[in-house]
């Protein structure tokens, strides 16, 4: 394997971005980070059932992308979907309850961590099979185009999906029919334990866009502004009717693949380099260089998020289990 270290670009001036956008960017990143840490803690204490795939470390990519979308645009989520869903606007309360398998969860407890979603905020319940969501995202985009709604679909996937047949078929169809979709690769370098350089000869996933005659771009995914600008452009292109774009956002898991994976297969040198580029504190520091932000304002956001998360956990813990009859419902419409 070949070690891939982060290459942060020169950060863009914040002055060109609206105050509200920057605040929301930080709020959502901070929310996802603390949601994931809280889930990890609840899990280790044996309170939470099932399995979990944490997304901490990848907040800048999911938040930057979702804030570049319209509220009624639709995203597809992966098995590592908490961050993507929270970034699109799923409430922490309904997601936390879902993770606990409670009837108050966004999927009434029938999806769990691997299938969280809330279509009312444009987050299709997560598709946990790698690569399978890409054709479905293309299909939603097909309906948007046919109905001329002006909406687009954003398909989140990891670099592992780029080796699946479904993914290639979806890219070809979306390009062929100029569908309004953004293919967003959260490249965290690893499919479980397997490094991307062990399973593809391409240096970047985005190279594969050329095979389908669509634009492909690789960006540093731990900078939310970088992601926001890139996805905004891809989304505008899709909305104009010019078809899909493949955006590859380079980022890193701060933990293992799932809760019982220490990730020891990753070389120390690579881990250290990436963990040093922590997107949440990095963006916080950067905001403080802009005169519109100060310590007080940011701690205010952090306290509010903390309270919201405490409430979410309390809500989830005190919610009812689904009635057993629910197991037989929703099989057919």
């Amino acid at each position, binding site marked *: 394997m070949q070690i891939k270290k982060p290459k942060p670009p020169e950060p863009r001036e914040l002055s060109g971005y609206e105050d509200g956008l920057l605040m929301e960017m930080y709020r959502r990143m901070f929310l996802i980070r603390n949601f994931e840490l809280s889930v990890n803690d609840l899990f280790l204490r044996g309170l939470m059932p099932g399995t979990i795939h944490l997304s901490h470390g990848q907040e800048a990519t999911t938040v930057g992308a979702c804030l570049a979308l319209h509220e009624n645009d639709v995203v597809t989520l992966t098995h590592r979907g908490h961050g993507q869903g929270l970034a699109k606007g799923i409430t922490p309360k309904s997601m936390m309850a879902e993770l606990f398998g409670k009837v108050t969860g966004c999927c009434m407890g029938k999806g769990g961590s691997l299938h969280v979603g809330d*279509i009312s905020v444009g987050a299709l*319940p997560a598709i946990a099979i790698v690569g399978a969501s890409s054709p479905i995202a293309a299909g939603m985009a097909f309906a948007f185009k046919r109905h001329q709604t002006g909406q687009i679909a954003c398909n989140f996937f990891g670099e592992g999906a780029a080796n699946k047949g479904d993914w290639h078929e979806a890219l070809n169809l979306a390009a062929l029919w100029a569908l309004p979709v953004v293919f967003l690769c959260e490249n965290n370098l690893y499919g479980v334990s397997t490094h991307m350089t062990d399973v593809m000869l391409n240096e970047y996933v985005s190279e594969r866009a050329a095979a389908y005659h669509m634009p492909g771009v690789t960006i540093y995914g731990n900078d939310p502004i970088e992601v926001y600008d890139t996805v905004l452009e891809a989304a505008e292109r899709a909305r104009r009717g010019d078809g899909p774009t493949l955006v590859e956002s380079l980022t890193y898991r701060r933990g293992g693949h799932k809760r019982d994976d220490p990730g020891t297969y990753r070389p120390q040198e690579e881990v250290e380099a990436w963990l040093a580029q922590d997107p949440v504190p990095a963006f916080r520091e950067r905001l403080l260089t802009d005169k519109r932000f100060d310590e007080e304002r940011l701690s205010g956001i952090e306290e509010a998020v903390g309270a919201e998360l405490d409430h979410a956990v309390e809500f989830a813990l005190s919610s009812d289990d689904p009635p057993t009859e629910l197991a037989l419902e929703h099989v057919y419409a």
Partner: protein
Amino acid sequence: MPEQTASPKAQTGTAERDLTIVQALREAVREEMYRDEDVFVIGEDIRIGGSFLFTLGLLDEFGPDRVINTPISEAGFVGLATGAAIQGMRPIIDFQYGDFLFTAFDQIIQQATKLRYMSGGQVKIPLVFQLPTGASGRGAQHANAMEGFFYHIPGLKLVTPASPYDAKGLFKSAVRDDNVVLFCVHKHLYGSKGRQLQESSIARQYVPEEEYTIPLGVADVKREGSDITVVANLLMLHRALNVAAELAGEGISVEVVDPRTLAPLDSDTIVASVKKTGRLLVVEENSERGGWGAQVVADVASQAIGYIDAPIRRLATPDVPIPFAPVLEEAVIPSQTQIREAILELVRP
């Protein structure tokens, strides 16, 4: 006796309305496309009608936006149709051969049939698969009885029409249904130009011009009788009807029940028939192991065992891939001779 749901019956009429299944289906799809703009057809080579000419003429009438010719990307276009259905469209996917569904199994079984359930009912996925099923002289990879594979899958409806009248009415119900519906037609029953058509009393049939639908989940007694119940679908139904007609001349009265849909399965009609005749033979083309016929037998055993006067029999394809040589294919698919012998064995005192 359980109450039976009323079910429209085929009637007779003018000769020019005597249609084959594929002609009846073309009318059904055309009418549904006029009725609802969100209905579209997608699949391989459908610009020239598809393998069994299901879409013949549709492109000229509806244009390439609603008759969408695809690359050979089954998983891709099944997933795409699923996404379109989630966002309010009503896709009909035409498969050249049902056998090609295997390359899209994840999209069908893990995605299309589960997204509603896993999301706690947040989405609905109205999606119809039109798929040719069964053996037709093409060797093992174009001969799968697909209904057998999907019988085990929750969250989908499985329709197996065997007559032109049923095909049209059931297809319209399938398109209007808000769920994933697999519409399986036997390759020897379409009656497409250049294809072999099974000879039987219902291979061509009067199909009324007026609008009608047939509900999914209602079996049909295709021939009434009193000595034995034969439950059969698709090609096997035709063979059973031919045998029943032959045996009538020999004083044996065979009742032939067509389930018409395997999911939902109308056990009530089947059980009521067995209570009347006291004997049961199930004939299915799929592999014997785990076939839908086993479920029919279990339902009858649990609900009507006291009415049974003879051993219950199943005829199915042995658990082998389908061989090419015509004599070998014929040897493994239940034949009229086998059906006849099984009936005689069961009704003889």
